[in-house]
């Protein structure tokens, strides 16, 4: 019996280690479960008037730009409001898309995990369906007004947040 225990013990330790690692990974995962990357195309539905739909998007460097596009055939993106946060509850943008069928948000300025919270706009009834598409900005060049220049790149609003004081060039919107 003691001999059996001696042979089982390393296996038990290994099994415990595997379970522990699996549990740790499992615990760490929920914060990043809804991470979207360029190329992702997700259908979303808010069916609770007080519900918050939360997604994360990564930028890997100061020069990296991620574009989050809300769209859906006949849906009205003005039915939702968008809050953009950094870890620790740091609010970097609060946006109310105008009525329409598309709204695109660019995120840049720092390597970060950006959290996007979508809620129903005031007075809006559930249920609201839309698509979230993650893209890179287009290289197209628009007019001198930012609204036109951004639209040419497939962007409606460009959010920047920096982790250090800007250099001589000031805030940089890569590719703009």
């Amino acid at each position, binding site marked *: 019996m003691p001999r059996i225990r001696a042979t089982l013990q390393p296996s038990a330790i290994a099994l415990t280690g595997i379970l522990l690692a699996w549990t740790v990974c499992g615990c760490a995962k929920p914060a990043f479960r809804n991470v979207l990357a360029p190329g992702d195309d997700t259908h979303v539905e808010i069916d609770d008037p007080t519900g918050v739909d939360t997604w994360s998007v990564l930028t890997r460097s100061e020069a990296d730009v991620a574009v989050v596009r809300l769209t859906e055939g006949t849906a009205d993106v003005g039915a939702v409001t968008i809050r953009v946060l950094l870890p620790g509850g740091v*609010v970097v943008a609060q946006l109310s898309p105008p009525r329409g069928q598309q709204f695109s948000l660019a995120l840049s300025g720092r390597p970060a995990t950006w959290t996007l919270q979508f809620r129903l706009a005031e007075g809006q009834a559930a249920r609201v369906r839309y698509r979230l598409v993650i893209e890179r900005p287009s290289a197209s060049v628009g007019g001198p007004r930012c*609204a036109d220049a951004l639209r040419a790149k497939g962007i409606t609003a460009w959010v920047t947040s920096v982790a250090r004081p800007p250099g001589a060039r000031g805030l940089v919107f890569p590719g703009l």
Partner: protein
Amino acid sequence: MSAVPAGTLTAASPLEGAPPVLHVQAGTTLRGQLSGLGCDPGQVQLNFWDTGTGRPPTLTVSNAGGRALCGGPGQPACLSDPASRRWVSWTFASAESIGSLSLMCDDLYLSGVVIQ
């Protein structure tokens, strides 16, 4: 964005566990020359946390020629005395292109800028 006097803008965490953002301290004016962005914005949003220390922040907006776009007769109000110790999103929209911003404050963390 640049600080006056130069070199007084730092990066710091506004709250425990938060990543660093721009920290504007007493005696510093933060100037944003938006005419150098690459396009002319008609709408700008600033997101910040004012600690409530010292004077309340004030923010003025001008066109490319330096003429004020807020606070005058028939113009929208400039930012003054916003809520402290909470995140504030202040949006300014103008039919005329926004050339520059000037933010005076005593202890404020600027987390994000949105252009449209």
